[in-house]
């Protein structure tokens, strides 16, 4: 069965290593913060200038001067640092953030990602997404494997305007976890109960399936 948003977030969190600095995009990526494995600690970077993002505030802790990149009120964890936007993106652009997790409209087998603009629809802006995909050491994309109409979002070539080129190496969808290398999607894991056939059918780009593909473990 296809994973829920929470399950995708749980699988994402399994990728986190102890001592990692992580930037989580809005939506499913943010949920991953709730599923950090036991015994592992990570620090969350929020690109508006906060390293060490804590939980949402209690009503008493709410402070207009303390928000995250999604403009939500937040807190700072112990040992956090706060800095300017230039410093924040120096970190990101300079490759100091270990993992970035973000959503996408499309990803292709060359590691290109489209996530910010649908021609004909109003363009609201890329925010920090282009900087994040250009700078992070490891990028994990979370999205549904296919759109509402059943069209694959894992393509031979992205059709929408790009956010970044040749930068994505890992994708976690509601059906599978895949890696991109040698201009090919490699199937690593499948969602419990989802067949390799279904994944093949819903992957438009070149897909390599080597050996037995294990189910995700939760």
């Amino acid at each position, binding site marked *: 069965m296809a994973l829920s948003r929470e399950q995708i977030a749980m699988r994402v969190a399994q990728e986190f290593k102890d001592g990692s600095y992580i930037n989580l995009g809005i939506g499913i990526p943010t949920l991953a913060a709730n599923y950090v494995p036991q015994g592992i600690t990570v620090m969350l970077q*929020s*690109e*508006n*200038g*906060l390293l060490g993002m804590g*939980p*949402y*505030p*209690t*009503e*008493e*802790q*709410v*402070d*207009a*001067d*303390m*928000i*995250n990149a*999604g*403009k*939500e*009120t*937040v807190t*700072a964890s112990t040992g956090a640092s*706060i*800095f*300017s*936007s*230039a410093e*924040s*993106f*120096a970190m*990101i*652009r300079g490759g100091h953030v270990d993992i970035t997790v973000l959503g996408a409209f499309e990803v292709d087998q060359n590691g*290109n990602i489209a996530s910010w*603009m649908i021609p004909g629809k*109003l*363009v*609201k*802006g*890329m*925010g*920090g*997404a*282009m*900087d994040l995909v*250009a*700078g992070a050491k490891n990028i994990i994309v979370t999205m549904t494997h296919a759109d509402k109409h059943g069209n694959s979002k894992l393509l031979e070539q992205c059709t929408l*305007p*790009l*956010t*970044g*080129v*040749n930068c994505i190496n890992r994708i976690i969808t509601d059906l599978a976890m895949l890696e991109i290398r040698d201009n090919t999607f490699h199937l690593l894991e499948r969602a419990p109960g989802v067949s390799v056939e279904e994944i093949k059918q819903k992957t438009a780009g070149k897909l390599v399936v080597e050996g037995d593909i294990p189910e995700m473990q939760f």
Partner: protein
Amino acid sequence: MAGFDKVVSSYEEAMAGLEDNMTVIAGGFGLCGIPEGLIAQIKKMGVSGLTVVSNNCGVDGFGLGILLEDRQIRKMIASYVGENALFEKQLLNGELEVELTPQGTLAEKMRAGGAGIPAFYTATGYGTPVGEGKEVREFNGRPYILEPSITGDFAIVKAWKADRYGNCVYRHTAQNFNPMAATAGKITVVEVEEIVEPGEIPPSQIHTPGIYVNRVIKGNFEKRIERKVTRSA
């Protein structure tokens, strides 16, 4: 040190010299850390044809959004403008031009502008619509695009505290774009919650040295919260 006392007592003085068609660089991220009173003064002055450089354009009725009501902004350079119905309308009407710029590139353009660096290379935006028409160059086998810096006729900045010499500190994530904006204005105006005496802020804790600041004014801030999210205690 009379020559260094930058405190002004009215918003008229604070924004004196702002004219039609000028470029204004504004600090702030969403509604966090925005110079509320300086924006209100720009509205009151009625100047138009402005190019505004800011990560966002406020919301309907608050922040930079109020400058849209009388069509004072001709061009917006921003990374994200999704919170504003009037903005959308003017954009679709062709009354407003927008130059979408990646957030990190925008921050670096302001910093570079203030630091006398006319242009820099970045990987951000290469191969995307942002990179179109820009010079591409490889360094160590990786392609980068050339981005020019930004300076403004005015920079409007919100700080927590400033001393009379213009030395500023920012509070929490209300820092955001403010330090870079402060360096990039021909005239930099800082609106603060509190004015303190020189020496009260320890020298190594000053975020923006007063050399970048021309005028300081004490403001009153509503500090509207865009997305209040809480957990139970």
